[in-house]
């Protein structure tokens, strides 16, 4: 279990990063989730895909933390540096980082699973314990919004993003 977790740590950190709003929150979530996974290793069913299980555990931990908050709406957009690499094509990366931070975490994590982890919608739905239709809607909404963002059109507003934290299926981003 430890070996698998160490092997997956960069992917787990990226996963925790799209759920969190700050680097500190990401590290805290990752650390707590890893501790819980080691403690509850017996719950992992041999033969199941380990990465799916680990992502599910982190997601469940994040949801638990969200429900324990007095105010479940996230405190503003996520930090840009969460999604902005330190090296490379800064202009292109900033475009991506700005877009990502404008989205609610539920949409960011769907984007990551589909475009970052190469998952099928069905697998993402199981992993996040979310209906398949919801995953397809979130993917469509996000990709269309990003396409518009690349074309210079307006992306969703911060206000809209906050509403989507509570009601992610009720608001549509402008295409």
């Amino acid at each position, binding site marked *: 279990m*430890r*070996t698998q*977790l*160490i*092997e997956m*740590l*960069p*992917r787990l*950190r*990226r996963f925790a*990063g799209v759920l969190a709003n700050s680097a500190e929150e990401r*590290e805290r979530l*990752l*650390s707590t989730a*890893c*501790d819980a996974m*080691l403690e509850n290793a017996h719950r992992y069913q041999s033969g199941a895909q380990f*990465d799916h299980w680990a992502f599910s555990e982190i997601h469940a931990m994040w949801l638990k933390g969200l429900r324990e908050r007095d105010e479940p709406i996230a405190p503003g957009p996520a930090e840009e540096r969460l*999604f902005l*690499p*330190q*090296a*490379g*094509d800064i202009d*292109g*990366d900033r*475009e*991506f980082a700005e877009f*990502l931070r404008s989205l609610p975490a539920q949409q960011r994590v769907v*984007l*990551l699973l*589909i*475009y*970052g*982890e*190469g*998952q*099928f*919608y069905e*697998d993402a739905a199981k992993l996040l314990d979310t209906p398949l239709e919801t995953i*397809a*809607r979130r*993917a*469509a*909404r996000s*990709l*269309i919004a*990003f*396409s518009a963002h*690349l*074309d210079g059109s307006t992306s969703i507003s911060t206000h809209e993003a906050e509403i989507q934290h509570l009601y992610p299926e009720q608001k549509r981003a402008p*295409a």
Partner: protein
Amino acid sequence: MSELSDELLVAYVDGQLARDQSAAVKRVVDFDDVAGKRVLGLKRANARLEEAFDAMLREHREQTDEETQEPSGETEPDAGAMIGRSSALAVFFGAHGALVLIAGALAVLLLGVGAGYLINTSSNARVGQPVAASSEQAASGWRRDIALAQGLIGREALEVSLESQANPDLVRFQLAGVIGPNVVIPDLKPQGLRFVRAQVLRRSGEPIAQISYLPETGPPVALYAKAQATGQAGEGSLTQGGVRTRAWVHNGIAYMLAAALSETEMDGLAAKIKGVIAAP
């Protein structure tokens, strides 16, 4: 006017549809200019997202490598503090990770040769397949794919080939028609590198020229060239399975040097090639 819904188009672009569904959407897209343009935009966004998430992963991988190599007792969060420090495990992680990637690259290479391409793509792999491909492979950007493929091309692969092309000018003319008019095949004889051949690989349908050279001894050196896409990262470097890369853009062409050389040798060679390409 397109009758296709946003969700169907995105699922098509994402390679999430079954083969027959995908073929049906393709038929509509081929004959509907509006839908065709939307698909092009979505494909661009799809590719950009894959690249950006890949860049995030590289960043986290470097951060994790640093954490697992540094001594404990630091105030920064480290991998050891999260899941128990074990240098033996960290070493295993490095070796195992490389093996997984090489095995993945070999599978991609074999699949690609069977299909007439050297490089397969994540979105193609998803269409009609019941089992998800390795997510690591699916998330790879073009540089990582190329670096993995380069690691599998040995000296013998070029030496025994009958495809060596004696006339670089003719080859350049042919490549210009595929990659773009500004593509250059640099003469690297002063650097001790003999031009052997050029060929066109494809990734996501996009042509990428592989221009191969051989030194007097040692592993081959390859320069890759493709049309620079808007919004794509132009410069950078990475190391994969012993192969190092250096990337830059000149005159609308994205170049990437790939070889199993040291960091210093790569920097020196890349600087010389940039000079040769930039020279009028």
